[in-house]
């Protein structure tokens, strides 16, 4: 495992992966592919990518190093099995496109089975923008192998050389004779399994026919008709209607409180309700969610509380090292040259501190799970980005061997990095075990706000030195708690010290779209703006003077040109800002125009962004992801913040935690740079990083106020203090 870790370092701010299980239950009773006919291709994960099948966290063993498998059935239909899941990032469609493209089959003939731990190979999880760069090539290889196998079958049947045959549109053709046959005829009566371990050439990007083009979501019709069932929608028709119960869990009054005792207020008050208490867990299962909620309200519990930090002490606390050793992840400082020597000699020096608040993912579908026990085996349908991780959590929490647990992930109502953990699945499973019937648990919005994990808050100190022309000579950056993603600068600077320091977080925290790349870009790009302001240089010009990376320059120039940066004027309550960045193989730049109302309200009038993630797989869906990422970024940049004090979340409702709405949407303009010569990178995360610094720059340009805290204007523009 350690060897694999060298290949793929899991970012330190994925705090939730290190977390302990939510419950400790008392020990109780301890507890391949069966496809017939057709052609099956198994793809072994190559060494470098085997970290996708490598395990982190608590789970043991490695059942397989397979990356994916693909089945061409006797009716010619194609089914691909992958451990990735669909959470709105469009992997179901983009991966189907890759397979159809490589197999030379119509997109409609390809179906994906995703995130089912019984049917799909192990996968670490759907996060880190890894489906497109890593899973798509694996599936392409599987499809290429299947295509070649089909070609061989036809060649054998017709007694010709395989190389004389064409494969296109779900058919194999022999041009000289005009003979042609569909995949179905070739796979009929076959039972072939081919394992693919080595390399197999796949179609170069410039020859893609299905991929590289816009295609509607393959499951769009089910969504617009309400037919798609998310985990929270599984119900009477999925089980015997009389069987399914609705579960609800008793929650502590505050973070850090543990259950001392619990009893029903009145024994008569819980007719037909199953009450489960186990260790520090208490929950109920009832015939309806209404009855379950009432039963919880009727419980009388005593709690042991522990003192929790005050909200106002947050940033001080984050600067303190966590109690006890932090194992494994975290990395060391990135040091180059000597900041200590270079800084005193710099023509200009600047020092500033930036902060970022905790923010919530607010996936519109809250955590949901349905658990069903049958013959000692547990099946849980749940919305998670880590089906195999949740399977391991279930096995550990319920003291089961992993082969007694199956996790199935229906396409999920979004995650944004917030659904990596299995607490809801564990709750449903525990209740179902006692109830002896399937139990569904759907978290309320308030439970999501109080008991899920947040994007980490952070404090970032930056010190810089530049020469008289604004070229960086020294750069020092310390990030406390929020994370190490994109902490290293892409600007050219000889003397650097960049370091992430784990902090003492008072709240549960973990992965969020883009991880700490958002906070680190906010600090770095804001600081670049501050240098530009101090030296009276144009912010774009200052960046250009410090950049060699041509891809970075290209996105900045593309955004600036589309925006009209050269002619943009700030003043009269209008301000323009620019920022750029790089993360996870892709580059982004954004120009923002804001208008400050006399009331102090900040309106984003216009947002122009350029994005480059190598070869584009599906232009329209890519644009959709980039737009969504940018607009979601507006929330965290401007107004989203989790407020808390002494173990209590103070704004645990949508009416008190503001997310972007229709009226917050600026005029949006995208420039997508398609680099067919570069491998495709993921796109859902990186665009978010440019938004906050571009807005901070725009607000500064409009008002002269430099805001260094995210969110920038939770209650409008602060009264000018500078």
């Amino acid at each position, binding site marked *: 495992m350690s060897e694999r870790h060298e290949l793929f370092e899991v970012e330190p701010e994925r705090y939730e992966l290190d977390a302990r299980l939510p419950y400790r239950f008392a020990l109780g009773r301890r507890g391949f592919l069966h496809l017939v006919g057709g052609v099956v291709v198994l793809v072994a994960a190559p060494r470098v990518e085997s970290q996708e099948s490598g395990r982190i966290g608590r789970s043991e063993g490695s059942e397989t190093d397979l990356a994916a498998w693909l089945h061409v059935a006797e009716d010619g239909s194609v089914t691909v099995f992958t451990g990735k899941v669909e959470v709105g990032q469009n992997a179901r469609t983009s991966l189907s496109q890759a397979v159809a493209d490589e197999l030379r089959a119509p997109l409609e003939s390809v179906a994906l089975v995703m995130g089912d731990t019984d049917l799909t190979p192990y996968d670490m999880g759907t996060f880190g923008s890894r489906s497109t760069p890593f899973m798509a090539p694996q599936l392409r290889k599987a499809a290429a192998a299947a295509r070649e196998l089909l070609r061989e079958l036809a060649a054998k049947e017709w007694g010709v050389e395989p190389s004389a045959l064409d494969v296109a549109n779900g058919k194999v053709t022999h041009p000289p004779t005009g003979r042609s046959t569909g995949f179905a005829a070739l796979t009929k009566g076959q039972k072939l399994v081919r394992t693919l371990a080595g390399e197999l050439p796949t179609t170069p990007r410039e020859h893609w026919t299905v991929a590289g083009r816009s295609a509607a979501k393959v499951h*769009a019709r089910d969504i617009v008709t309400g037919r798609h069932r998310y985990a929270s929608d599984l119900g009477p028709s999925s089980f015997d209607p009389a069987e399914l119960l609705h579960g609800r869990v008793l929650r502590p009054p505050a973070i850090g409180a543990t259950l001392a005792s619990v009893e029903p207020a009145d024994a008569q008050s819980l007719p037909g309700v199953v009450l489960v208490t186990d260790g520090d867990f208490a929950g109920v299962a009832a015939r309806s969610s*209404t009855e379950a909620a009432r039963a919880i309200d009727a419980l009388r519990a005593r709690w042991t509380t522990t003192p929790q930090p005050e909200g106002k002490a947050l940033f001080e606390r984050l600067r303190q090292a966590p109690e006890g050793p932090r194992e494994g992840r975290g990395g060391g400082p990135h040091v180059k040259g000597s900041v200590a020597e270079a800084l005193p000699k710099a023509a200009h020096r600047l020092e500033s501190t930036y902060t970022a608040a905790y923010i919530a993912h607010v996936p*519109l579908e809250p955590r949901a799970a349905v658990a069903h026990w049958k013959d000692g085996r547990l099946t849980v349908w749940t919305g998670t980005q880590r089906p195999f991780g949740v399977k391991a959590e279930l096995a550990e929490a319920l003291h089961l061997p992993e082969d007694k647990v199956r996790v199935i992930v229906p396409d999920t109502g979004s995650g944004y990095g917030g659904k990596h953990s299995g607490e809801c699945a564990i709750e449903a499973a525990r209740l179902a075990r006692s109830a002896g019937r399937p139990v569904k648990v759907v978290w309320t*919005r308030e439970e999501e706000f109080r008991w899920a994990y947040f994007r980490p808050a952070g404090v970032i100190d930056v010190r810089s030195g530049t020469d008289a022309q604004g070229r960086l000579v020294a750069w020092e950056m310390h990030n406390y708690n929020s994370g190490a993603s994109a902490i290293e600068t892409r600007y050219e600077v000889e003397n650097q010290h960049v370091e992430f320091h784990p902090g003492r977080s008072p709240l549960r925290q973990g992965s969020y779209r883009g991880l700490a790349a958002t906070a680190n870009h906010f600090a770095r790009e804001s600081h670049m703006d501050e240098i530009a302001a101090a030296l009276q240089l144009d912010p774009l010009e200052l960046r250009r003077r410090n950049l060699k990376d041509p891809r970075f320059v290209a996105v900045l120039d593309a955004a600036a040109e589309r925006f009209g940066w050269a002619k943009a004027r700030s003043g009269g309550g209008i301000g323009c800002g620019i920022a750029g960045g790089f993360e996870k193989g892709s580059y982004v730049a954004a120009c923002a125009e804001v208008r400050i109302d006399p009331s102090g309200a900040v309106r984003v009038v216009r947002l122009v962004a350029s994005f480059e993630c190598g070869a584009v797989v599906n232009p329209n869906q890519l644009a959709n992801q980039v737009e969504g990422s940018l607009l979601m970024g507006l929330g965290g940049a401007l107004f989203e913040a989790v407020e808390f004090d002494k173990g209590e979340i103070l704004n645990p409702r949508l009416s008190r935690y503001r997310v972007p*709405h229709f009226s917050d949407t600026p005029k949006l303009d995208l420039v997508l740079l398609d680099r067919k010569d570069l491998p495709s990178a993921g796109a859902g995360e990186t665009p978010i990083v440019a938004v906050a610094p571009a807005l901070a720059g725009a607000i500064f340009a409009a008002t002269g106020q430099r805001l260094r805290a995210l969110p920038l204007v939770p209650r409008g523009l602060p009264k000018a203090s500078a």
Partner: protein
Amino acid sequence: MATLELLVNGRSHRVDALADESLLVVLRERLDLTGTKYGCGEGQCGACTVLLDGKPVRACLTPAASAAGKPVTTIEGLEENGRLHPLQEAFIEKDAMQCGYCTPGMILEAAALLRRSPDPGEAEIARAMEGHVCRCCTYPRIVAAIRDAAARSRRPGTGGLPHTRNGP
């Protein structure tokens, strides 16, 4: 526990409901109409929007008893004989969704809007839709889809928006 008569998507159902139980819970748990989603429980996200007497309401805040006897339209009732409603077509066409969880509520609110105002401008659409959250932030595409649906419905020969089934 009371027995209510609900008229949902043109069909009459007798359902049991607890006192004060919401229309959302009854639709989802008693009638298995799960296209209507829970998102916040306080009328802030719009995911549970249904049409009651042709008007958009938040099912999470609507007592089931108050809907008795009145026509209710859910997302499952928009298709007619396997033909999608123009809004459903437009949402697919404009790719106006990512995870799709907010989509049913968005479409029903938009259906009510288009019935009031067959050719709304962008600002009017944004105002009408303001109470709906798309956390994936596909807002510009939703606006585009609603405009597209309005245009489809105006096309000659299409006979305008299908009249959403309101009663038996």
